[in-house]
């Protein structure tokens, strides 16, 4: 695992957000460096809302988000993406009516390096996608769709990747493969990762630090190795 005190990739303080007047996130503080930062929590804890808020897809009620030194609290989602924030949603992560190749190309429309070079790297990381490139994304299996969504986010050359439960509902084979890829993306490409997961055992294996979310509040933020089972159970309200 990499160091936990790298340059501050993302700082958020006092985050409050939600939907239709209902507050989901309550005063969340976050400080992420060059690391794999995992957000754990039970169903309904607010993990998806947290990542969507950081990606600027859910409006803030209060608080601020500073990404790579710039305050991005008030800018739209498409601008955070251009500044190096990649987002992989849990569901509906592909454009079903575009082919795999077209999906990946949509991600490659921003960034400075040549799209061909980035495409090669994505195919090296997910070799299955190269064979599937002409197939409609709407016809892919769950695991294949997640690979496309992840590959497309990497086509943006992100400095920070927000992964929302990338292994939810996948077979054990895909789950193992995804956690290996997450480590590879961080260690080989130097991409910081905020990973929302329910699968605590697997997530803690790849995480540097962890936040346990409970009913929209930050229950604990710790080095992954220091988190005890009792703390986890309390956070999950088990």
């Amino acid at each position, binding site marked *: 695992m990499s160091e936990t005190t790298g340059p501050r990739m993302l700082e958020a303080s006092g985050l409050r957000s939600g939907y239709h007047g209902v507050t989901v996130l309550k005063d969340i503080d976050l400080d992420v460096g060059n690391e794999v930062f995992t957000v754990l929590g039970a169903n309904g804890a607010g993990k998806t809302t947290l990542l969507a808020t950081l990606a600027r*897809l859910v409006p803030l009620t209060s608080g601020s988000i500073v990404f790579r030194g710039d305050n991005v609290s008030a800018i739209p989602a498409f601008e955070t993406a251009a500044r190096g924030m990649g987002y992989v949603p849990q569901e*509906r992560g592909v454009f079903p009516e*575009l082919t795999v190749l077209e999906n990946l190309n*949509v991600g490659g429309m*921003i960034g400075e390096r040549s799209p061909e070079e980035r495409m090669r790297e994505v195919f090296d990381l997910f070799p299955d996608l190269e064979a599937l490139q002409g197939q*409609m994304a709407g016809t892919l299996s769950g695991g294949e769709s997640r690979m496309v969504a992840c590959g497309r986010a990497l086509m943006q050359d992100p400095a920070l990747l927000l992964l929302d439960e990338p292994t939810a509902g996948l077979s054990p084979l895909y789950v193992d493969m995804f956690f290996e890829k997450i480590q590879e993306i961080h260690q080989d490409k130097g991409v910081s990762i905020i990973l929302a997961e329910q699968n605590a055992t697997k997530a803690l294996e790849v995480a540097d630090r962890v936040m346990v979310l409970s009913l929209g509040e930050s229950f604990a933020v710790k080095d992954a190795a220091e988190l005890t089972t009792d703390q986890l159970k309390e956070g999950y309200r088990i």
Partner: protein
Amino acid sequence: MNLDWLDAFLISGLFSVVVIVGLGLLLHLQLGLTRIANFGVVGFFGIGMYSFGVLFTKVDWPFGDFWAFLISLAFGTFVAGLSGLLVGWLIADLDEDGVLVGTLGFATAVAILATTEDGLTGGARGLGGLRFPYDVGSVKADEFLWLIIVSIVVALILLYVWWVHRTPYGRLLIGIGGNEPLARSLGKPAFRAKLWLFAVGSAGMGLLGALFGVMERFLAPENLGIDVTLAAMVALVIGGTARAWGAVIGGFLVIGFFDIIVQSYLPFPREWYGQAIPNIKQIVFGAVLITVLLFRPLGILGDMRRDKLMRRVHGG
């Protein structure tokens, strides 16, 4: 030019087909690619028609007809584009119901304004004084030439649509239609793209409205009925919303059948053409639309890509 071989009804019928094909093509970009159900097509059509007509006939132009005509045409197109920008800004973030009601409301407002603003539009009495920017000797020849000119304009619209399909901009529109939040999270300015699409589409609809007004030579609020929007939509849905050629095939099949074959070549009693045939036309439009949506939801042409997807999803 000797045009004895050409039936005046055929010119008029073909002209209706060409205009509806043009509107259907522009609607294809909005509905077929981006899933914006614009039910206000006739509103933008009417804005262009009246802006052009009022400027052309009411201003005492210091130079010849040709330049006055071109300036008025550009003005009509611009005003329609501007109104598209405004309406687009209002509806861009609404859900399907909001878009439907908003665009329908806009078209209704345009028709009401055309009827009530007597001083400017002539109100229910209509606005005369429109004319072709040329004179080639006879009314029929003038109309035939105008049909050719408008066909070229619609061919250019088809070329634009074809080009959009092959560009990253087209993929962006399909992406927005399929999953807008995802498109935004990927750095795509979805709101701006929808606004631009709406402005360009509306400007095109306004241009077609102005060109239509010239052929009519007389602008009346009756031209701004919902049937114009319905005709474009029916043509597009029947041809295939997802394919550039869908509006062309649908337009010729649906509008061509009524405005050319029924109008000129089927031996119905003369008195039917007043009310019965237009009413039957609306009923058939509705029936065909329901049938196509039930049995061929992607239209006659379908969409190779979506067909594959649907087969995979639904089996078969």
